[in-house]
């Protein structure tokens, strides 16, 4: 068996015992079940759940992965004293964290939706929400690894992760909104879509909007939006963007990891 797979397996086993991932899954489970139960059914719960996904998934993925790397630094050092290549070690570690996080999301949010019937009645929206959540998880796990590997000091790294999250989840959109007003005289469709692509939280949110607000997006006057939000092209582009947001920071993190001094 190759090293990456071994590291992955040990890490999953270790995480399973740490209860952090289980706690995250339990939180999502309770939140989703609560939204479904007290929110008045899937049609009302899905938008709230979408907000949870867009806010909580990046935050948890960032903080867990950042602190995981800091926490595991000594353990990484220990493993690196053995004949373990850095690339497979990184791959094993990354997947060993990203996949359990994604699984916690899918199970935590998915089980109540399946039991509550939302999966059956709103299959398309639930599927898009699920894919958006999983790719947000992997994207922000990549970013978390990158932050933790770049910033030596754990406190500043976690601080930076929080700032990154706040910036991505809230402040960035404020900038986009101001920009939309500032350049209101110009055709903004393409710039707006590009600005969405530059923020993984926005890309995931756009997927959610496709699932939940298609009627409104179709009411938009511009042809670019109509084409983007009206069909599979937009979904494919958004998924590709999230894929890139997973891959590029992930590769940057690996580059850093391979050259890092422990």
């Amino acid at each position: 068996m190759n090293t990456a797979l071994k590291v992955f397996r040990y890490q999953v086993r270790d995480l399973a015992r740490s209860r952090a991932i289980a706690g995250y899954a339990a939180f999502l489970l309770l939140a989703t079940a609560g939204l479904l139960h007290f929110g008045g059914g899937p049609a009302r719960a899905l938008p709230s759940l979408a907000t949870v996904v867009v806010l909580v998934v990046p935050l948890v993925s960032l903080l867990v992965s950042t602190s995981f790397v800091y926490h595991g630094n000594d353990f990484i050092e220990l493993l690196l004293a053995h004949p373990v290549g850095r690339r497979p070690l990184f791959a094993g570690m990354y997947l060993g964290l990203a996949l359990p996080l994604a699984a916690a999301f899918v199970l935590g949010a998915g089980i109540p939706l399946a039991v509550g019937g939302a999966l059956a009645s709103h299959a398309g929206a639930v599927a898009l929400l699920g894919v958006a959540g999983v790719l947000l998880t992997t994207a922000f796990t990549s970013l978390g690894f990158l932050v933790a590997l770049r910033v030596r000091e754990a406190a500043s790294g976690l601080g930076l992760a929080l700032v990154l999250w706040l910036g991505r989840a809230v402040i960035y959109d404020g900038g986009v909104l101001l920009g939309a007003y500032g350049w209101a005289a110009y055709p903004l469709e393409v710039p707006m879509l590009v600005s969405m692509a530059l923020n993984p939280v926005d890309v995931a949110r756009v997927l959610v909007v496709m699932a939940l607000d298609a009627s409104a997006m179709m009411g938009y006057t511009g042809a670019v939006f109509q084409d983007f939000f009206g069909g599979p092209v937009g979904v494919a582009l958004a998924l590709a963007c999230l894929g890139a947001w997973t891959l590029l920071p992930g590769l940057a993190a690996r580059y850093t990891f391979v050259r890092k001094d422990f």
Partner: protein
Amino acid sequence: MTEPLAPYGGAGLAIAVRDLAKSFGTRRVLDGVDVDFAPGAVTALLGPNGAGKTTLLKALLGLVRPSAGSLRIGGAEPDDAGGLRRLVGYMPQLPHFPPHMTVRELASMLDDLRDFDGHPDEELVDALGLRGELDQPFRTLSGGTRQKVNAALAFRYDAPVLVLDEPTAGLDPAASLALKEKIRRCRAEGRTVVVTSHNLGDLDTMADAVVFLLDGRVRFHGSLADLLAETRSDTLEEAIAAITSGPSPASTGASRGDAGGVTAEGTGDGDAERRRRTDRDASPERPRVEIVR
């Protein structure tokens, strides 16, 4: 500079460090280190805090990537895949083990990662009294016990090279003795042992040679007796103080504020005896004394 030494009994591997430099940002931690570690000998790496001891050890392991220079173990250079680390048993300073794993699980994980299917060297497991702790998760183990595990793991794979960073720190006297006994046996088997220690007592009983690092450079490489003679000191502390604070022959002019912090904070065991100790008979070949200029 010392001549490269022939492998002892074929079991050890010579380590050759050539013009090794390492900077962290603007800070130069290793500044052209040239040193050889001979097989069948225990070489002690000394120096004040921040002299670059741990960095040099980590460079041997590939944990730190040198900015310049070369490093060979048994003639081979480290590579990304870390194959060379199969030859090195490493005992890091203050290791952190996964809190939820048991000792046995960690050991079998490392066996697995190394594709190790031989007979592990578990001598220290018994000598350090770890048998009863094997199924305890690390979070329930005391710091001293963890350090015992750390030691046991370093020797587990019969590596021809042993790199030990502060091996006796945190160990009780009995365990410390057992570990030193193990180190001596390794030397007798011809393995290459590099050790740093704050505990000068360790050095007296084990070290065949002393390498003294200051400001990232080798300031002395030779026997302890020669070090004392060369510095006209009676004690190791005095010798270290002499090298550290005296007009440094090879001063880079970048003497830092913390350079005076000599690391001879002996833990107090056997100081007097150690200072008189000059016997180096166990050493298979005595390194030539040299003050590096």
